[in-house]
């Protein structure tokens, strides 16, 4: 390979790229948070809701888990304006990521609801627990413990998935790397640095989620 590395041309852009990494984290964080709420509502509907509502949730989940995220965001960004709804690129990406996450998180959380042990609820009932106490002391700790690892995994997948936003001109990490590349064409150096930042982000997230899981729920969550 006859290539001379010119790191000097890109090191100056590191703070700019790091700012992009923060936007990536922000997108993942908000997308995950909104997805969790959507997922919890849909999971509760699937577990306890009326038939028509369950069908609706099923349709939502199968649409968003069976089509690519990219197509979903294209639809929101380029399709919705025809219906008179205008989202800017950041909004379209955030809505797309959130709805996509909501579909996957519905399935994960539903599995959690289904796994609450009947036997523990019987014991709680006969010990005189109120409904609220059962939720507080039996259901929620169980959900947190069983759902922690799959949720943490999904969060990390989402952090990496935010790079899709670059296609729509959102200046997150990948978007800013593309911008720098357009200035000096030091592609190898720039994308190495971007990749390094992604690795740092996911390893930091994995490690902190692992230690938190160990501390909070005594589980050795295999987060990647």
């Amino acid at each position, binding site marked *: 390979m006859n290539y001379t590395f010119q790191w000097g041309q890109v090191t100056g852009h590191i703070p700019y790229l790091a700012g992009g990494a923060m936007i990536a984290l922000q997108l993942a964080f908000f997308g995950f948070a909104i997805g969790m709420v959507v997922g919890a509502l849909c999971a509760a509907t699937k577990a306890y809701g009326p038939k028509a509502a369950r069908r609706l949730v099923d349709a939502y989940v199968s649409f968003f888990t069976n089509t690519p995220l990219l197509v979903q965001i294209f639809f929101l960004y380029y399709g919705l304006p025809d219906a008179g709804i205008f989202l800017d690129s950041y909004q379209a990406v955030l809505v797309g990521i959130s709805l996509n996450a909501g579909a996957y998180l519905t399935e994960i959380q539903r599995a959690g609801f289904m796994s609450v042990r009947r036997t*523990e609820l019987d*014991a709680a009932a006969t010990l005189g627990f109120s409904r609220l106490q059962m939720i507080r002391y039996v259901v929620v700790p169980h959900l947190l*413990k069983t759902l922690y690892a799959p949720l943490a995994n999904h969060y990390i997948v989402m952090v990496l998935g935010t790079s899709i936003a670059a296609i729509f001109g959102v200046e997150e990490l990948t978007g800013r790397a593309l911008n720098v590349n357009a200035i000096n064409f030091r592609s190898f150096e720039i994308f190495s640095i971007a990749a390094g930042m992604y690795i740092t982000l996911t390893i930091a997230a994995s490690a902190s989620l692992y230690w938190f899981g160990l501390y909070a729920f005594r589980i050795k969550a295999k987060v990647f």
Partner: protein
Amino acid sequence: MFLSIDGLSAGYGGTRVLEDVSFSLERGEIVSLIGPSGSGKSTVLRCLVGLVPPEAGRIALDGSAVDYTSRAAVRGVRDRLAIVFQQYNLFQNMTALDNVAIAPLKVKGWPKAEVMADAKRLLDTVGLGDKHGAYPDQLSGGQQQRVAIARALALKPDVLLLDEITSALDPELVTEVLDTIRGLAANGMTMLVVSHEMAFVREVSSRVLFMDRGRVIETGPPAELFDAPRTERARDFVTKILRH
């Protein structure tokens, strides 16, 4: 009569599993229910603590009938009758000590220092003095079942209901659990026992009820029921289980 059950019928989703069951229990007495699987023994206990709603009949505590459609009444019964389950049903996210202490602390609101001291004493009594901080998944089946017994005792119940508490245990762990129950029996605890451990039933019970297909077929002192059953079905059952 301390606890009396009159003409109790109950079922799950339209299928009757208890038909016209009647018996009573005096304070300090130990009564055992025996019979083949599916005969309704466990359902009797589950009815008593309000996990299965009675469909007909009358259950009375200290002479006053319990209205199982009233939440307050069911809570009142659960204060006085404590059940220990076959599968222990411990709270997996809590230590042994917390499993024992949570109900007195959170449901009853008893003072913490007193509850914790009491919970520790109970765990010591069941032989788990060194396992206060262990989680259920760090304990053997026999140890878990002894935590469950301590948990049931923590609310100071009048009657202990034991639902096949050794059926899920390896044979060598059965003894440690039964010894715990023997200790309680010696202290005058009132108990209603569902068990397949016939030697144990014979040893601790003052009366034994033989159940089959949801009905009480025969009642009597253990010596009589095991050695000279009056009914054909009880004789069949007793000869089958005592053969091995």
